[in-house]
């Protein structure tokens, strides 16, 4: 959690000698400066850590626990053209090392977001990634236009992978042609960095990644939740209000790491990796698999300061291992 400015004071002053040469020799060995900055398809981030959409609200919810200025980016709750009410309860169920959710994209609509939530985020020196979803290509186009004209939006993450809504989610994301079509329409309507968020609920994630890359995506986010289900043996009924839900948390991490690895090797786009990242070690695993940046999701619920701990932990890992640029770790496991 040390800031660069504090590092100077970490070394007691009495270690310094009067000979300037001795001092120079000592300094780099004690605290090498490390570069945490990454570029995610045109989005410049001061470190590789953002929040996963839907787990961090619109930002202010976590402001008491997280210094929003320290995040690499803030990814806000999925936003649609019209307000959405979301699914009936229960919307969340715990599973071993994971959770199932079926929120159903509850959100106040894009106009409300721009008028009421975005101004708050402009107070921070942190890029804002807005996750968007729609029922139709026209919806995606219109949401894209409205957000592209709003001050303070740094990038769009296109949700073509929500498992919890009938339309506008996974239906698009699991069909290669439809997925590419959504990305093409969004691309036509924005110059903002465009991140396509992919569904893991497909046979071949590499194929779909290739299609959305051709359609104009600047980066890929993966993975969204895995479609899952829980049945209450007492009532003999599905536990969740929407029958099925999306599985997140450490339970899905190995699947996510595998998909990041496969996609990163096959598609020349930077990847925002996510899926069960709880700590810096998990985040580093994704980076080594080929992710240029990572998103922290379910971990926020367990440890509201998780993103801060992860940023500090990545920096520490780099120092401990003599890595001066985080970009040198991206895909390092391939070698």
């Amino acid at each position: 959690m040390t800031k660069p400015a504090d590092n100077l004071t970490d070394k007691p002053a009495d270690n310094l000698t009067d000979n300037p040469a001795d001092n120079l020799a000592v300094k780099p060995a004690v605290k090498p400066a490390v570069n945490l900055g990454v570029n995610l398809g045109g989005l410049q981030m001061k470190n590789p850590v953002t929040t996963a959409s839907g787990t961090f609200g619109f930002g202010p919810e976590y402001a008491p626990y997280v210094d929003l200025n320290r995040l690499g980016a803030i990814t806000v709750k999925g936003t649609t053209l019209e307000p959405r009410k979301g699914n009936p309860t229960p919307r969340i169920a715990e599973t071993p090392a994971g959770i199932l959710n079926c929120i159903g994209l509850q959100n106040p609509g894009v106009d409300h977001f721009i008028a009421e939530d975005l101004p708050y985020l402009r107070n921070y020196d942190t890029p804002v990634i807005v996750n968007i979803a729609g029922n139709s290509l026209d919806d995606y186009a219109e949401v894209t236009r409205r957000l592209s004209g709003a001050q303070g939006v740094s990038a769009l993450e296109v949700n073509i992978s929500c498992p919890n809504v009938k339309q506008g989610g996974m239906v698009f994301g699991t069909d290669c042609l439809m997925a590419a079509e959504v990305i093409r329409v969004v691309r036509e309507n924005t110059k903002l960095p465009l991140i396509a968020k992919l569904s893991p609920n497909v046979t071949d994630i590499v194929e779909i990644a290739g299609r959305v890359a051709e359609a104009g995506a600047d980066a890929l986010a993966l993975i969204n939740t895995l479609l899952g289900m829980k049945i209450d043996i007492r009532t003999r009924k599905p536990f969740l209000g929407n029958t099925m839900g999306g599985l997140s948390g450490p339970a899905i991490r190995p699947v996510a790491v595998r998909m990041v690895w496969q996609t990163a090797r096959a598609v020349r786009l930077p990847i925002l990796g996510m899926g069960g990242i709880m700590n810096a070690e998990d985040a580093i695993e994704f980076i080594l698999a080929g992710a240029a940046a990572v998103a922290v999701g379910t971990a926020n619920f367990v440890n509201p300061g998780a993103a801060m701990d992860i940023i500090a932990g990545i920096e520490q890992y780099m120092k401990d291992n003599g890595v001066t640029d985080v970009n040198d770790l991206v895909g390092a496991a391939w070698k």
Partner: protein
Amino acid sequence: MRVYVPQLTKLAKPGQFVHVRCSSGLDPLLRRPISLHGIDYGKGTISLLYQVVGTGTRLLAEMAPGDEIDVMGPLGKGFTVPDGIKKALVVGGGIGVAPLFPLIHSLKHYGIQQTVLLGARSADFIIGREQLELLGVKVKIATDDGSLGYKGFVTRLAEDEISGGTPDYFFACGPNPMLKGLISLTKGFGLSGQVSLEEYMGCGVGACLACVCKSKAAAGREPDDSAEGFEYKKVCVDGPVFEASEVILDD
């Protein structure tokens, strides 16, 4: 369980809750929302009363005095005692009596008369009767099996109290069917009040939208794609305490 946590205690109000990590591992993963059963501002402690129902609460029960615990809070919007009320009816069902204790202390502090109704499956599940009687509060009991007090639902006792015409406000916490019955009963008598709700919860800070309840949408701002006449509010930050007239409880 009593937790020494002075910074949190200083800010705590009746009806609020804390989000408790029951394990340092990954199962159970989520925190458990547990209401404040006692707030000792002098000692800097809060007490938590919970029923062992699953892995999380079992792990809590296995903790030993002196162990450290990770609690987040105080969270949520608690009870507010409206100006001018003179006699309150307080209704608790099962473990739902837990958050009512700090409220009962506050009502007493404000010199508001109160009758507390406790309902449970059987005598073994009636919580806090002795403490309340020591406090000098009038307590009436209902049990499903009649092993203590009135045999039947606590809502029946509530009906007797209200039709007796004495309370001018009510506070309640308990299972949804009880609250639903109570809301409809009090509506019939024109009695206002507040209810504390429970829902499966994720973040506890209003970010994940897991713990929602149906609320009668304010006119003109229906955020609706189906015009069903309600909006979802967040139990964790808009509640857990809501105006009784506002909430819509499902069966």
